[in-house]
């Protein structure tokens, strides 16, 4: 699903170069559920952004679902992201002007979900009775579940989650992470989850540590 080769990210500032990410090689198989952990500033979010095509690498390649992202023009990368990748954020980021259902439909390239399909999706996260509520009418846990649905309900094969439980309490975070993994497993989606919580990362079948992955942290290039 994802293949990264000789990936580097350098920030230029005041005439000085700062190498923040250097990953020699990384491969994530289709259907895998992977947690990426590391301390703050270890480059885990930067790696995630480059996997989604939102951030361009300074060097190297990122191939997602057989497509080399760096070869795509910006508009094509946007379209690819809409069709291929579901995004989950730490702060949920639901649009306040839309209902829960409309926020879920926001990530769909076209309006192809039937009412029944939407209802089943909301039932799977226990929110069938709240699908017409606005975000401010939902609890934090409910908002996060809506954010999950937004990422999962489309046909996008890859889910990228950036600290998806960072705004939740420990108990809710654990339950939410279990739900996320179950939903991905049932739907056969590939899940890459960035988290600083080692305990939550341990629930994933595969864990990657940035301290091992990112050569820039070792002083390598």
């Amino acid at each position, binding site marked *: 699903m994802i293949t990264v080769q000789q990936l580097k990210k350098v920030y230029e500032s005041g005439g000085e170069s700062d190498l923040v990410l250097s990953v020699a090689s990384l491969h994530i198989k289709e259907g895998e559920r992977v947690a990426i952990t590391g301390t703050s500033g270890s480059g885990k*979010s930067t790696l995630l*952004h480059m996997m*989604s095509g*939102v*951030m361009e690498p300074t060097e190297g390649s990122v191939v997602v679902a057989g497509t080399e992202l760096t070869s795509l023009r*910006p*508009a094509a990368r*946007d*379209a*690819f*992201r*809409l*069709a291929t*990748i579901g*995004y989950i*954020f*730490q702060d949920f*980021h639901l*649009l*306040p*002007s*839309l209902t829960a259902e*409309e926020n879920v*439909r*926001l*990530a*769909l*390239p076209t*309006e192809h979900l039937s009412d029944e399909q939407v209802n089943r999706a909301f039932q799977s996260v226990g929110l069938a009775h709240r699908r017409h509520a606005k975000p401010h009418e939902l609890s934090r846990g409910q908002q996060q579940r809506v954010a999950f649905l*937004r990422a999962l309900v489309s046909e996008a094969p890859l889910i990228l989650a*950036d600290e998806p439980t960072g705004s939740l309490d420990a108990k809710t975070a654990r339950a939410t992470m279990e739900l996320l993994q179950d939903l991905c497993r049932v739907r056969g989606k590939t899940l890459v989850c960035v988290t600083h919580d080692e305990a939550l990362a341990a629930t994933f079948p595969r864990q990657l540590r940035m301290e091992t992955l990112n050569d820039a942290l070792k002083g390598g290039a």
Partner: protein
Amino acid sequence: MSLWRLTWKNMWHERSLLLLAMSTVALVTALLVFVQLASDEIEESAKRGYGPYELVIGHEGSPLSLVLHTFYHVGEPLGNVPYEVYEYVARSPWKDVAYPMTRGDSYDGFPLIGTDVNYFKTRYGALAIEGATYEQTGDVVIGSHVARATGLTVGDTFYASHGAADGHAHDEMPFTVTGILPPFGTADDRALWTTLDYAWHVHAEESDEEELTEGPITSIVVVPSGLMELQQLEQMMNERDGVQAVYSGKTASELLSVVDQGRAFVYVVTVVSFVIAGLSIMLALLAVGASRAKDIALLRLLGRSRSFITRSIVLEGALVTGIGSLVGIVGGHVIAAFVSPVIYDRFGIAIDAWTFQPMESLLVIGSIGVGMLVSFVPARRAYRVDPLTLIER
């Protein structure tokens, strides 16, 4: 989610701010529509205001005042001319027909005018009058608008007042309604009509003097026998002391040019108002855009393209002005419907409030164009939003 649905939901979420901007557009549009309706009708009224009476003769003074009070029943006559002036015109070979008029009294704000009953036949042809025309002093026929406004019907009696509205009543001489005229679509609908001698009779009653059979008259309306004859008569009358003769059409054109100047001024004010409305929309969209920066970044992260975002903002601007102009067009016609009875009562101009004009569709198209144009700045800003701003910590 489609572009239209997302745009509509965003607009609804920010409706307070956008409603203000929309209201500005609606108000300006309503003003423009109302002015257009009123000025069109004023122009039409001015054109048909004098009928076949190409010349009007009266006391010397303002030509515009003479035409206004004779044909549009607006304002008061400045004086009278001797009856022998009419006799001279009546004997003249330069006229087809000429009718003298006396005025000075009113009922319930509507002028009472004495003239030959054939004035109507010459101007409007055969009359389908309800009741009968006036035959003797004290008989009155009333215009259709007077009948509606006052409730007078055939057989009713009333007392006229001296002057425009609140003068003393002539309680020595009652008038009896013998007929109600059909609607003519001119200022004649808002007048009461009686015999030429009513004014002399009233004056004699009041002053206890002997009644005159040929007293002073206010104006003479003339259908000339030809163009040369018209000019001859006009010249002849203007050489007499205390008398003026005025080409009705020429003076009506001068009235129209005043109306045109007024209309042009209103157009300039409206254009300026439109510019201000456009700026207010741009500011509203900028304010809304600033508050939606995170939403825009989210949409970009989810994979919505830059062009999707900018199209949404431009569509929003177009909808604000488009809806505003549609509401304004309806509003302008509603205002005209409310105001037209007042204008008709005061000036005898009947505005057809529900005539929709081709200009109005251009107004909507133009408004949408303005909305799209002023959306350009906020759309450019949204275009440059970096999606990473949403998630950078």
